[in-house]
């Protein structure tokens, strides 16, 4: 197939995978922004969310019922985590918090497999994971419908979140919290409520990511690994910037695909595992605070 057209396809494909990474990274950002916690359990939450969703459907709940139930469940999970894991750890060192969330990962994985079992399940959102016919026929580009769908969902999600943050009272409060906890408290912002809320939201974000990933590659344990895909996205985008992770996600997605396709064969391939991280390092050397992260000012 024509060189440029192929390049284009690689690029588009990469960008679309990037969206999927960004979706996962989004959950990290929300929580880090609000509570300064690097929530490694996000991956497990994605897995748990998707698994619960199909689980409820297996129990006979129709889509329109399973969805709200799972949303509620994830929100509850988020609240529970905030209340019983992170609140007792407030003001601890960031490493301690990170470690706590990794411990949480084990718990969530265990609970998920305890409650829903280990069988691999499939999730059918009714969208075909096949190339858009007219694109394939006319442009010869193979773009899967579900990828497009995912991109749209991601766009909507981000739009809504940014609206919530910029327009609503809660959103402004959240921004204040993100800027300075103490100050936020002093002007009477209910910190705990905000945190709880953010954890609930990130639970729902996890569900969205989980459903899209699940629809692509089945609902199964491997979903927890999507977190690893999100990490380089986070450093490049900055832990605190919603638009940051979206852009970074696109960058990582496109870059790693191009690298794998064009550089990969010459070094034996499989470089996707580390390429994004190296990319991230190079990025950091230029901008230690990430793409849109707040600049870290350090005084003597």
């Amino acid at each position: 197939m024509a060189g440029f057209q192929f390049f284009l396809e690689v690029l588009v494909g990469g960008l679309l995978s990037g969206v999927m990474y960004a979706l996962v990274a989004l959950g990290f950002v929300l929580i880090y922004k609000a509570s300064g916690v690097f929530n490694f359990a996000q991956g497990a939450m994605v897995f748990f969310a998707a698994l619960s969703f199909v689980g409820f459907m297996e129990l006979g709940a129709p889509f329109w019922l399973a969805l709200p139930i799972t949303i509620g469940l994830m929100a509850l999970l988020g609240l529970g985590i905030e209340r019983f894991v992170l609140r007792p750890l407030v003001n601890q060192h960031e490493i301690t918090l990170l470690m706590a969330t990794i411990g949480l990962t084990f718990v969530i994985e265990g609970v998920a497999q305890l409650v829903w079992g280990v069988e691999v399940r499939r999730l059918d959102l009714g969208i075909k994971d096949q190339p858009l016919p007219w694109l394939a026929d006319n442009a010869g580009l193979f773009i899967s419908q579900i990828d497009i769908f995912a991109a749209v969902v991601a766009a909507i999600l981000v739009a809504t979140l940014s609206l919530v943050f910029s327009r609503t009272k809660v959103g402004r409060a959240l921004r204040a919290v993100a800027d300075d906890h103490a100050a936020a408290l002093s002007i009477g912002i209910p910190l705990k409520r905000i945190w709880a809320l953010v954890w609930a939201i990130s639970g729902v974000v996890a569900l969205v990511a989980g459903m899209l990933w699940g629809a692509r590659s089945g609902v199964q344990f491997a979903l927890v690994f999507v977190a690893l895909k999100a990490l380089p996205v986070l450093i490049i985008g900055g832990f605190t910037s919603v638009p940051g992770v979206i852009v970074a996600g696109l960058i990582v997605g496109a870059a790693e695909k191009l690298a794998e396709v064009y550089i990969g064969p010459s070094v034996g391939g499989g470089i996707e595992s580390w390429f994004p991280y190296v990319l991230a390092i190079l990025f950091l050397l230029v901008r230690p605070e990430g793409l849109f992260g707040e600049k870290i000012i350090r005084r003597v």
Partner: protein
Amino acid sequence: MFNVGIGRTLRGLMAAAVVAGVSLAPSLAQAQAKEQYFGIPSYRVGAFAAGGSGFFGGIIDYLQYVNMKEGGVNGVQMVWAECETEYNAARGVECYQRLLKRGDQQMHIFEPLATPIAYGVLNRVDDDKVVLTQYGYGRSDAADGRVFPWVFSTMTSYWSQISAKLNWIATKEGGVANLKGKKIAHLYLDSAFGREPLPVMRRLAKDWGFELIEIPVAAPGIEQQAQWLRVRQERPDWITLWGFGAGMNSTAITSAARTNFPREKMVGVWWAGSEEDVLPAGEAAKGYFAAANVPSGKNFPLVQDIEKVVYGAGKGNLSDPKRIGNIYWNRGVTAGIFWIEAVRNGQRIANKRGQTLNGDEMRAGFEALDLTPARLKALGIEGMLPSFKLSCSDHEGSGSVKIIQWDGAKWNIVTPDWVSSDRKMIREMVEESAAKYAVEQKITPRKC
């Protein structure tokens, strides 16, 4: 949320307590009877739990079956202890050491169904006199019993599998000659496991004149955009999928659909050929082929009898009986058959009828494994296992596979007869590789 989990646990435990009350009774009665002890290093959580629970469930069900059906082997009861490895080398070694001795009983067979764990214990089994079986994984060159006296790659190694698979592709193409100039892409998990068949493939590519395209997938492989773009670019005639874990395999299949690559031109390794591997792909998996060392299905007398005897008595190991007869479980059952046959042989050879075997006797029994068509029929597994025979020097035996195809709901056998590999070539490669290993490890191969 947690409450749900805890609740389920409690219910589980209560149920367990009841079961315990029932099941303890007989085992007490037989406390005096002779016992043959097995250690079972299973993995029931984590990325590969689906396969693990099925396979080890199958083994346990068969041991249970032998106990219930014929009161053990010549009166020797099969007993076992289980240990969770999480498919992790360190945990696996710990399990090996833990299971090795139980009271005055010794473990003589170790089947971890995990390459890393098999490697972790590889150089311990000689001292401990433990038969290390690698049921369709691990070192292919372990087939050379002279260099690996205690390791078995029964009954078909990766090398044999890929050879058999390519033989089948050749017949589909109407003969080896027609493969000339064809393209075969090897889409593999970028790990030792994924690269294992490459030597064979490269060699055959040279001999047969087809073009081999190697496309690695970085673990965990739930994202294969780039790889399939290469497929689109190269447009291979066939793809041999060498993946592990439902994540990578189902993603490969869906990605094939995304790139309009015909599933009828994809042949998976047997770790990409279980129900768990294709179910998540849904419609996309229709028509996809895979090699099987053991086909799935319930239409084998033994399988039906196990369901009747063991599950009928509520002693089945699978929490979900619907999984009876699926690939991993059937594989487990046949693994159990190897064990029991080895015990029978061992008792005969050492003429310790009705007595517990030690390590050497168990190995002798294993090396005497001889599944004649008649024996297979007697066991009620005709067509489930190939007929094969082990020996002191040949620890592989069969080297043949069946090709199965997914019809969207279940696996169907497309090769009623077993597709065999190029035994001679593989054996040469095995001995070559084993010899190299022997030199590196300063092992003097035993005489056979």
